[in-house]
């Protein structure tokens, strides 16, 4: 009797029961990980020969690619100018130093090249001449410059002078250092302990001597006048 009870229930109950079982089935379906092996798709039917295959390059497609005109790369500037910086420097030096005297004066192979520690006198086109100890020389092509240090009325004054500047008319060596400096840059001369003071006396003596030589009173030949090529011998020496 008891087992027959659900059957004897009204049909509406059957509806709920079935609904429940359907939900359970859905849950089971979701949890399954098993997948039946997929059947591979049958190969596509053979296409007519007029339709070109996208994977196979036929002669009909390749030919137009070859017909596109290609151009050679433009001529490389590197081949035209192998050392552009050198040429640029030479171009400017041709204008700034036509005789090449400044270049020769500060060339490293010049036996009389001014060194750090020498006293140099620079004359300007406009402005007073400036003399001082050469503390450092910066060789950078057109930017080549010398650093001069002097004491003017107790105050130390330093000046970088570009040797190729059009404003510079002459660079003269007033006095060589007695002993070769063991440094290339004598920045220690800024310290009071090593400061050598003013070069006024040396410059005055040099100018006096130069005047005597040029007048011929000393009986010494003026090197700038007696040279084979006076224009080139004047390595920045100011013509009197």
């Amino acid at each position, binding site marked *: 009797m008891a087992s027959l009870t659900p059957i004897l229930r009204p049909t509406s109950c059957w509806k709920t029961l079935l609904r429940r079982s359907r939900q359970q089935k859905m849950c089971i379906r979701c949890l399954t990980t098993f997948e039946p092996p997929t059947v591979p798709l049958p190969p596509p039917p053979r296409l007519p020969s007029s339709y070109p295959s996208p994977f196979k390059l036929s002669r009909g497609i390749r030919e137009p690619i070859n017909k596109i005109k290609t151009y050679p790369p433009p001529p490389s500037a590197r081949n035209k100018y192998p050392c552009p910086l050198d040429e640029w420097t030479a171009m400017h030096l041709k204008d700034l130093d036509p005789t090449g005297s400044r270049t020769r004066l500060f060339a490293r192979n010049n036996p009389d090249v001014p060194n750090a520690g020498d006293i140099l006198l620079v004359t300007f086109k406009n402005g007073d001449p400036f003399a001082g100890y050469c503390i450092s020389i910066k060789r950078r092509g057109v930017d080549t410059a010398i650093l001069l240090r002097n004491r003017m009325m107790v105050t130390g004054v330093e000046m970088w002078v*570009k040797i190729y500047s059009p404003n510079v008319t002459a660079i003269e060596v007033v006095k060589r250092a007695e002993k070769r400096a063991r440094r290339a840059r004598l920045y220690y001369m800024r310290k009071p302990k090593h400061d050598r003071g003013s070069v006024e006396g040396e410059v005055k003596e040099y100018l006096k001597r130069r005047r005597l030589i040029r007048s011929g009173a000393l009986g010494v030949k003026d090197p700038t006048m007696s040279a084979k090529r006076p224009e080139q011998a004047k390595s920045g020496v100011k013509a009197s």
Partner: protein
Amino acid sequence: MIQLKTLLNCIDNSGATIVECVRNMGMKRHGGVGDRIIVVVQKARSMGDSGPGNTTATGGANKVRRGDIRHAIIVRTRKKYQRKDGMVVRFDDNACALIGKNGDPIGTRINGVVGAELREKQQSKILSLASMHV
């Protein structure tokens, strides 16, 4: 590079020897040669030198006294500065010359070297007073 609290040597004969910058004129961060600044006199020469009959020797020895606030023109800087022609100039100290509110120098003499930039900055009066310029 003269800025607030920079101590400068005063190289004119106004009586001040050491002054301190308190302001740069013209909304500038740093002052260079030829710039106008406001200074406080920190150290002045002793007042005893300028008695009657001694005026020629001392000039304007007591025109300023310690604590005065004055205008000044920078004439030398330790910081190197470059000119238009490529030259770079540097002095060993910072120095200035005192001027009045109207721009005329207070001292009558400037003993020391000054920068040539003063001419460009329309400070030719100070430049002509100076015995030497670079």
